[in-house]
């Protein structure tokens, strides 16, 4: 129902919009007067040279003014936030169908990527990168999304996995398939080790301590030169083999055995399917775990820790298993990273990686497997798409994230799917689902 708009109300509406736009423009003027209006540079003898750029300033303020009018008009057209909009029933059901088909469609597409883009090495490499982050996101999702424990040091387990494989393979000559579970177990062990001291911490405190743990692992790697090679890293990490068959042009290589011509792309395709399989394993295990008592206990812990204790749930072991499970997947991903790169150094395991993976989990919707996969695709793949924008890439990226968080404050897929149901599985609105307090 729309109110009939009289000319008077339209005038007052226009005045309101102009007032709002003028305030925005004023804020922009104050904010940018020094940032854009005056340009300073160090002169040849060290003195400060400055000149004014008032025309640039004026255009920025004008853009803000115009933009704010457009935003306000859009908001009017869209109606107040939170009003239920009537979507035609047909569109609604087709949207629901599209949502249901999204996950299988993505999976089929992922399986076909090496076939479609066989000759485009760049896309295959990007696909491997995206899948690595999908896997890391799914791993961290167990800790942050399900158990509600904010972990800012996830990269530590990625590093433990990578170095476990690198060192075991270069020192003892163990194969990738032996090292992969070992890397996972070692990372899980470190996850438990981190878990013990932080069990009592909640929220911000937990985040800071896990952040510190991530840095400690990196600094130990940098400084323990005799074992890890320090800043020089570990090189000559063996490439993975297809159950003992190397993917090389040698006589016993896969190409020679199959009687086909050798191509370096074989290895890339193999790596692609390897990380896809690892990521799907992570996904499968997580989906299974959610339906088991341990997974329900994780989610219950996120909802209400005190109630969990009253129901006889051991908080200590429940938190530790969440840390260990998440860390184990991080370790697997790390081992894959090491075998793919052939060379690892502490530079690959900075806080930025933790932040990126956490951003993927938060953006995807905490706890949602599909959301995390979509977020990884957007964050890693989308970031590459904007490569042409050069120095504006970060700006576009930032704006996109801000818009997404306004549009979807609880992530791309914010609702929660129940783990068990009697009659009908109803998605639970994100308003009810807690984010956890650590």
């Amino acid at each position, binding site marked *: 129902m729309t109110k009939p708009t009289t000319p008077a109300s339209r005038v007052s509406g226009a005045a309101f919009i102009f007032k709002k736009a003028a305030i925005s423009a004023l804020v922009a003027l104050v904010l940018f007067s020094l940032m854009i209006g005056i340009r300073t540079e160090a002169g040849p003898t060290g003195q400060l040279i400055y000149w004014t750029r008032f025309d640039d300033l004026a255009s920025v303020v004008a853009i803000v003014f115009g933009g704010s009018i457009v935003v306000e008009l859009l908001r009017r057209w869209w109606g107040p936030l939170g009003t239920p909009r009537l979507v035609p029933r047909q569109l609604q059901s087709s949207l629901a169908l599209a949502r249901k088909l999204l996950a299988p469609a993505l999976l089929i597409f992922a399986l076909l990527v090496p076939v479609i883009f066989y000759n485009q090495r760049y896309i295959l490499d990007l696909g491997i990168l995206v899948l690595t982050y999908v896997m890391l996101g799914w791993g961290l999702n167990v800790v942050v999304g399900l158990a509600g424990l904010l972990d800012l040091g996830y990269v530590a387990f990625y590093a433990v996995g990578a170095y476990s494989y690198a060192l075991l393979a270069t020192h003892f000559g163990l194969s990738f398939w032996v090292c992969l579970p070992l890397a996972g177990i070692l990372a899980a062990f470190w996850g438990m080790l981190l878990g013990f001291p932080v069990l009592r911490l909640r929220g911000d405190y937990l985040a800071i301590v896990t952040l510190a743990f991530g840095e400690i692992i990196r600094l130990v790697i940098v400084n323990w030169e005799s074992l890890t090679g320090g800043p020089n890293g570990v090189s000559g990490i063996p490439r993975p083999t297809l159950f003992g068959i190397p993917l090389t042009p040698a006589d016993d290589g896969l190409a020679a055995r199959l009687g086909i011509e050798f191509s370096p792309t074989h290895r890339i395709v193999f790596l692609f399917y390897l990380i896809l399989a690892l990521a799907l394993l992570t996904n499968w295990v997580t989906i299974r775990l959610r339906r088991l008592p341990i997974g329900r206990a994780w989610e*219950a812990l996120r909802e209400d820790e005190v109630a969990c204790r009253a129901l006889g749930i051991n908080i200590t072991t429940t938190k530790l*298993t969440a840390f260990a499970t998440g860390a184990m997947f991080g370790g697997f991903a790390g081992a894959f990273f090491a075998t793919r790169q052939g060379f690892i150094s502490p530079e690959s395991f900075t806080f930025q990686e933790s932040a990126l993976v956490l951003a993927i989990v938060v953006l995807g919707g905490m706890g949602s497997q599909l959301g995390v996969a979509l977020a990884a695709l957007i964050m890693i793949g989308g970031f590459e798409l904007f490569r042409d924008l050069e120095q504006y890439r970060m700006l576009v990226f930032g704006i996109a994230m801000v818009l997404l968080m306004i549009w979807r404050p609880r992530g791309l897929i914010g609702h929660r799917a*129940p783990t068990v149901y009697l009659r009908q599985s*109803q998605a639970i*609105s994100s308003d009810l689902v807690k984010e956890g307090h650590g």
Partner: protein
Amino acid sequence: MSGDSILDVDGLTMRFGGIVAVNDLSFGVERRQITALIGPNGAGKTTVFNCITGFYKPTSGTMRLAHENGAQIRLERLNDFRISKQAKVARTFQNIRLFPGMTALENLMVAQHNALMRASGLTFLGLIGAPSWRAAEKRAIELAKFWLDRIGLLDRADDAAGNLAYGDQRRLEIARAMCTEPVLLCLDEPAAGLNGRESAALSELLLSIRTDQGTSILLIEHDMSVVMEISDRVVVMDYGVKIAEGSPRDVRDDPKVIAAYLGVEDQELAGVEQELGL
């Protein structure tokens, strides 16, 4: 007092710094009976609950729980989750503490955590989908369905607990506590915020839990109509000490109890008693 008491609290004292919240309190809870713990606000009732259910460690005193098979458990020596897991004492909270983002059914499944953990072979059997695990899960869902039916929420099993009406949430919390299959159920103001019809339904539910499941119940309650209707025994507290104990009728007529509720000084007590014709 008959010999078959499930819980014997003896000399329970809880100090917070200089404040004595509970002072040398002794009382018993009879097996298969409903015992009410009443008293004015700030009398220390919830503190007693928190001591019994392991959320506080009492400064001194003993709490002996006797299982039907003769096993004696000293509650003050257990802590935290073990009270529910080993001693089989379940509780609800004054301000409802459900898992609001989980469905009613899921809430009841979480309550069966320890039994299901064993059945799932500490997750490993469950991960590979072993038949024994599937059977156990089916039984757990049946138990949850049984309790949902008992509290009249079977058709809302798949709704988020946070979306249920207040009275339904209260009953769901009791059902969740019962899903841990306790021998002693501690309810902290179960009738708070319920209307007359809802508290009547609650009384009925608690009486049937006592009779059908044979669970002993200890409850804190301010709603005297509920207390008088369902309690077998009443323990009255004020300022951290027990001031009366007995059947609901005895307690109702006890001048000390009346004085505590009306807020009369001890010296005025005789006058009040005379006025009331006691």
